[in-house]
Structure formats: C-alpha cells, structure tokens
C-alpha cells in the first residue's frame, strides 16, 4: 500500500472509531435512565455534549498533526485539550453520585 493510501485508510479508521463513539453517545443519551433534562435549552444540551465536542476537536487535531507529521502540533494540541479537560473534570467534581461510586 502506498503512503498516501495508507494515510487515507488510517484516517478513515480513526474517524470511523470516533464517529462510532459519538453515535453510541447519542444512543445512550436517548436511552438514558432519567429524562428530566430532556426539555433543556440548547445551552444545556451543549453542556451535556461538551465531551462529544471535545472528541470531535481531538479527531481534527490528530488527523491534522499526523498529516503534517508534526510532533509539535500534536503536543501543543494535546496540552490545550488536557487543560480544558482538567477544568471540565473539576467543574463536575463529584463526591456522591446516585447509587454508587465505582460501578453501577
């Protein structure tokens, strides 16, 4: 397989993987246990799906940096996303969630 073909197949694979994950997220949201937030505003929805937006951005970053074969772009992009994710985690800091901490 030529380099350009291999890159294309790789990009398709990683995109397919991300799309699958996003599709599962929508499926789970649709099948979620408590639907009290269904009537939420667009802002609420965006907040709820922030993780999916981050995922889409990461996919863009990964395809771009690999296409550019740039470790620097990859590293900087990762650091920015990590800072954002740390903030996101801290905002959603949970000490008690529903029935259990570990599993279901």
């Amino acid at each position, binding site marked *: *397989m030529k380099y350009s073909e*291999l*890159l294309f*197949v*790789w990009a398709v*694979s*990683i995109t397919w*993987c*991300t799309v*699958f*994950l996003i599709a*599962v*997220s929508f*499926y*789970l*949201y649709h*099948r*979620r*246990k*408590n639907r009290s*937030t269904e009537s939420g505003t667009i802002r609420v929805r965006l907040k*709820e*799906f*922030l*993780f*999916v937006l*981050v*995922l889409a951005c*990461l996919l863009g970053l*990964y395809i771009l940096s*690999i*296409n550019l*074969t*740039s*470790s620097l772009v*990859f*590293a900087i992009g*990762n*650091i920015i*996303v*990590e800072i954002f*994710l*740390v903030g*996101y*985690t*801290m905002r*959603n*800091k*949970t*000490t*008690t*969630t*529903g*029935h*259990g*901490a*570990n*599993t*279901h």
Partner: protein
Amino acid sequence: MAPVSAGWTAGGDATSDTNTQTTSNRKDYWSIPPSDVFRELETSVNGLSEQEAQARLKTYGLNELPTHAFSAMRILIRQVKNPLLFILLVAAVVAGFFELEQSIAIVAIIALSVVLGFYNEYKAEKIIEHLRQTVSLKAVAIRDRKATQIDSKLLVPGDLVSVYVGDIIPSDIRLVDCKDLEVNEAVLTGESFPVEKNFATLQVQNPTPQQLANYMFMGTVVSHGTGRGVVVATGKHTEFGSISRSLARTRPETEFQRGVRKYGNLLISLTLALVVGIFTLNALIGHPIIESLLFSLAVAVGLVPELMPAIVTISLSQAARNMAKRRVVVKRQVSIEDFGNMDVLCTDKTGTLTSGKISVKDYWTPLGAAELRILQYGLLCNSAVVGLGEVTGNPMDAAIWEFANEKGFHKDSDSNVVIDEIPFDYQRRMMSAVVQTKVGRLLITKGAPESVLARCEQVETPNGIEPIDHMRVQIEPKLTEQAEAGYRTIALAYRSVENKSSYSVDEENKLTLLGFITFTDPPKEDARQALNKLKLMGVDVKILTGDNELVAVKVCQELGLTVYRVIRGSELTQMTSNEIRTAVEEANIFARITPEQKLDIIKALKVNKHVVGFMGDGVNDAPALFESDVGISVDSAVDVSKDTADIVLLDKDLLVLANGIEEGRKVYGNVTKYILMGTSSNFGNMFSAAGASLFLPFLPMLPMQILFMNLLYDVANMTLPTDEIDVEYKDLPKRWDIDFVRKFTLFFGPFSSLYDFLTYGIMLFIFGAAPALFQTGWFVESFWTEVLVIFVIRTRRIPFITSKPGKWLTILTLSAVAFGTILPFTFLGHFLGFVPLPAEFWVLLVLMVATYLLLVDAGKVFFYKVCKF
C-alpha cells in the same frame, strides 16, 4: 468386633426408591437387645475409653462424608480448561517446527499464566477451607465414663452417643434408650412428618430404613425428645453416606454467579467468532498461515477474562477472612455477594432483636392471683430436658423448669408421674401431658392462649369450677395488656382423663382453665443501632415470628422500627399467592406464622426480585434458611440450622451483620470493576489489533507479545480485590445488570481503540516505524492505557483527588507500568522482539495517555451524570 458394613443395597441404585432398599449386607443390630449390641460392638453403658476410640478412629477413619472440598487438581483444571489456551498450545507446538524461539516463549507465557492463577486461587481456597472448619458439628459421646462434647467427625463405631432436640444425628446409631424421641428422616426417606423411635428389638428381615424404629440415621434431625444409642456405622459406611451423592442438595446459582456465567459465555462466543474471522481475513490477505493463526488466538486470549475466577475467589476469601475477624464465619463463599446485595432481611425476633434469654416474669390465675399450682402444672407439662447439667429444649419450658425448681418443685416427684405426652406442634400451638396424680389421672395442656382458650369450657376460680364464657371478657383484655407490654403469655388448662394406654390430640377439649404464665425477653441494647444501620444500607428488615403480633409490634416500637403493616399467619393462610406477593411488600411484621409460612414469605419475596436473607436458629428455621438467598445462623443455633446456613454469626448480633454486608458489597464492587475494565480496555485493544492487521503489511503485535502483555495485565490486576470502595457504593444493595455492562462496554471500549489507531498513526507517519518499532510502540501505549485506566474506571469520583485507590493496587499497577516501560530496553524485551523507542516517542506517549485518561474521565461525567447510568 463385628464388621461395620456399608449400604442397604449391594451395588444397587440406592437413589431410585428408598422404600425398596434392603438391609441384606448390614449387620442386624436392630434384631438384638441393647446388651448384645454392646457386646457385639465391644462397648458398654460407660462408652469407650479414649484410647480405644483413638484406635478405632485409625481403623475406621473420620466420621465424615466425601465433600466437594477444594482440591489442587480441580483448581489446576479450572486454570487450563479454557479451550482457547489448549488450541493456542497446539498452535504453538506446530509453530515450533517453523520458529522454535517464538513457540517456546508462547508456551512459557501460558505456563506462567496458569501457575499465577493456580497459586492465587489455591491460597484463597485454603483460607476459605480453614474458616469453614471453624464451624463444626458436635456430638455428646460418653468417653472414659464421662459425657463429653466432641467433634462429630471423631465418632467411631461403639461410641455411646446422646442426642437432643435439634441435633443432627452424627452417624448411624442403634438406640439403647430414649424418651419421647421423634426424628425427622425427610432427608433420607422423603417423609416430612417425624417418626417415633424406641429401643425395642425388632424381628424383621431386610427392613427398609422406615421400618427401623430403633435406629437413628446420620443426617436426620431430632425433632422431639432425647435418645441414647451406640454408633454402628460412621462416615461413608452409614446409610446417608451410601446415598449422599444422590441426595446432595445443590443450591441454585446466585444471581451474581448467573450473571458472571452469562457474561463469560457471551465473551467466549464473541472471541471464538473473532478468532475465526481474524484468521480467515489474515490468511486471505496473504499473511503466513501459522502466524495468522497464532495472532488470532493471541487476540482471543487477550479478550477472555481468564483471571475472573481468580479475582472472584481472591475477593471472596479476602472478604471471608475480614468477616471472620468480625466474628462472622462464611460457610458458602459465593453467598458473600448475595450478602452484599441483600435488600430484604427476614429475621426472627427472639435473640436477634431481643436478648433471647426468656425467663418467667409472672404466673397468674384468670382473676389475677399468684397460684403456685400453675407453675407445678407448667413443670409437669414440659418438654425441657436436663443434659450435661443444663436445662435444654424449648426456651419457655426451660424457663418454667428453672423457675419452678427455684420455687421448690421438681418434675420427678413421687406424687405426680407423667404417663404420656402429646408433643407440641406448630399447627395446634400447644402440648399436653397425661399425669398420674394422687387424685387421679389428669391431662394438662399448655400453649398459646388463643389455642388453649378455644378448647376450654370451664375456668377454675376461688369459688370452684365455673363456665368460662362469662369470664372471657375479663381474660382477653388482660392478655392484650400483657401482649402490648411486650410479654409473652401461655395458658394452662387441665381435665380428668380415664386410664388407658395412649392419648391423642382428641383429648384436648372440654378443658378447665387454670391460669397463665408470663415471660419476658427484653429488647437488646444494640439492636436499635443495628436496625438503623441496616436501614441506611438499604436493607429492609422484616420480622417473621411465631409470637403474638402485639408483642412483636411492641418490641419493634421500642427499637424505633417503623411498623408498616402486620400480618398474622391466619391471614396468610387465606391469601392467594398473588396476594402474598403484595402482602410481603407492604408488611414488615409477620406474627403467629408457621415454618411453612416463613418459607412462603421468602419465596414470595424472591419472586418479587428481592435478594432475601433469612436469620434463624431453630429447627423450624432450616427450610427457610435453605430457601433464602443468604441463610444466616448463629453459633449457638441447633445443628440443623448451622448446617443449612451459608453464614454463621459467632455472636447473635445484627451489628456484625451490617459489617458483613459491607464486605459483601466490597467484593461485588471489586469483581464488577474487573469486568468493566476487561470490557472497556481489552476489547478496545483487541478490536484495534484485529482492524490493524487487515491494512498493515505486518502484524501490529506478535502473538507472544500479546500474550506477554496479557500476563503483565493479569499481574497488575491481582491486587484489585484489596482495592478500596467509595463510601457511597456501600450505601445501597446492587443488582447484577448485564445491560449496564453492555452499555459500559459499548461506550468505553472505543476510547481505547481510538488511541490505538492514533498510536498506529504516530508510529507509521511520524516515526516511519519498521515492524519491530511499530510493535514496540503499540505494546507500550496499549499496556499503559490498558493498565492505567483502572484508576479512572474504578470510581465515579475524580481519581486520586476525591477517591484514593488501594495502596497495593497503586503499587502493583505502577510497578507493572514501570516494568512494561523498561521492557524494550532489556534482554527479555529483545527476546520478545522489542526494540528501544526514541525519546520523542515517550514525550508523545505521556501526552497521549494523559489525554486518553482525561477523556475517559470526561466520558464518565457524560455516562454517569448526563445519562444517569
């Protein structure tokens, strides 16, 4: 000494029909008088000497049946019975003809993996076995002329043994003496009613067990009276021993066992499909056949949760050990999970919520006078017996016995002789004794006031005998008053009877009421605290008592237990099964119920999808203990209860129960963690491996590299059972939910695949990696993500910040990561086909893995908080 031979039938099918069994090859001790039995077995009324007993023990062996105790071989077989391992082994041997080095490495990794699993499971099983042995059945044998309580395993033919109510008969025994002895032989014959026993010689040829009234058989239960006899057969030579295999009662799978098994089967079928698929595709696109086969098998091995039995066993043994420290002995280790998941606890009142030491508070005539004759009659109509200097039997009878003795009354006086007894049963709720007094023969009846009063026509007053009808209005409020005050009351009545050889329940009518005896059993001091704790843990406590509902309500109120609804046994009798299902949800006190109704209540709760625990200590509790998901008994309980129970409390205390439930929840939590980890990271890795092999001109990882990673991963997970559980996880009982596991896998699995594909991109396009470098890079990334994700998945909280992992889990996991990191630079790494990675890769790896872990953590917020799973 005559030989002690086995079985009723020589080589016949003992299980087909016990009624057709014969005694052709058994020494006929039933047909000779007790004195000859002593002579034949070279023993006497003074029993054996300790020295002789030891000698016989060497000859006949321990009095125990072959059990399903753990064996090293069974554990080893469990490690290797995975068909994939076997196929992989065969494939490795075949590969040896082409690439010997790889073949040896694969075999070595498989062997190491098996040894690791074996070692851990063996150690865990040994601990469980040790704990199980701490609860042993006892027998009262006469040795060196003294009655001694010994472990029933040490009984030998010729031992003289005494048995009491509630005892499980420890071996086959020829009776030489007995008193009102009734034995329930249901375990042997299927007959649910107890059979009367005597010690008279029988002249029967080839009798069935049912015909041998002068024999007691191992495993049967004394339901009434006392007896003494000579052991004629022990262990596998007993009747029970010869048919025990077929009679062994197998418990149904617990909910968790069923869930884990279904999950395992799902993974195995998925894995087999994957093996066939990957192998076919790889072979079709031109990869070498042997390499493709080994690769597909290695991927499959990576997916199979082969460590699951070890994790479960280690978790259970660890929990059992912790529970033993809190004086809770686990007899059936799989019950620990159900113990944690239990959401309804049915318990009796006496001894659990109350002190259990019943004593006589008062005795009174219908007009309120203290009449000593009430005590005297209570003593004459009494089933308590004196054994080993202690008054045993029904606690109320024992209390009357002790109280009457204090007042100077003794049962064996010359003036009153007990001629016959009509035993107590739970249907009549009373017993009677026929007594020869100086003035004639009397039938004295003692029992539940409503049962006795229903059979009374007259009442004794200072003015003489009067019709009872006009007195009922005075008596009933007094009884209610006593019951509301939390006291139990029994009634005593009598009538004259004519002289005849035997008496039946038909005589229990037209009685004259004499009076009442009131008992007290105060609530336990720590029961309130325990009930509160159980409530906070989501365990609904239901009281199942044979006692009066007013007494039960009073005790519950004193302990702060809210009474929602009280149902009497008589109401339950009128209900359909659907109505019972509704009633068991609404009520939390069931009063005046029979053992059969206890069983009905537990069955109904189970049908309603509850995990039900039952705590009991009496003979009549055994069926309920067996039927419940978790049977709990206490060390002081009768043998049959202890034997049936899954868990034995060394102290009859609800507080230790709460501690045990916490341990159960910890086990469940840690086993579930392993399942979720396996599904989320292993699945992702193995799917991306399968995907990559299709477009890469070489294998993304060599088979032995995959197997080695799998081994390292297993090592890292070994300390998972020691991990901490977040405090809120212990709050409520959990239920096995395969749908949750499926959703979790579907959501968290692709995260791992995403980062695997990213690593492929980095290795191929940034580093332009050759096969060895590519494989090394992916091995390290895959291992880091697979192992480190445990810290994120193990909790719903923020890892390390709001939820700290267990010390040993942290140490071992980080050590495994460190080992995986330096591996490419070592000789072993070189042997496995790894090459050193460039410095730039490590920088990218750290960033990539950090993003991965943070992304999974953000995914957790979406999964748990937004989707509310």
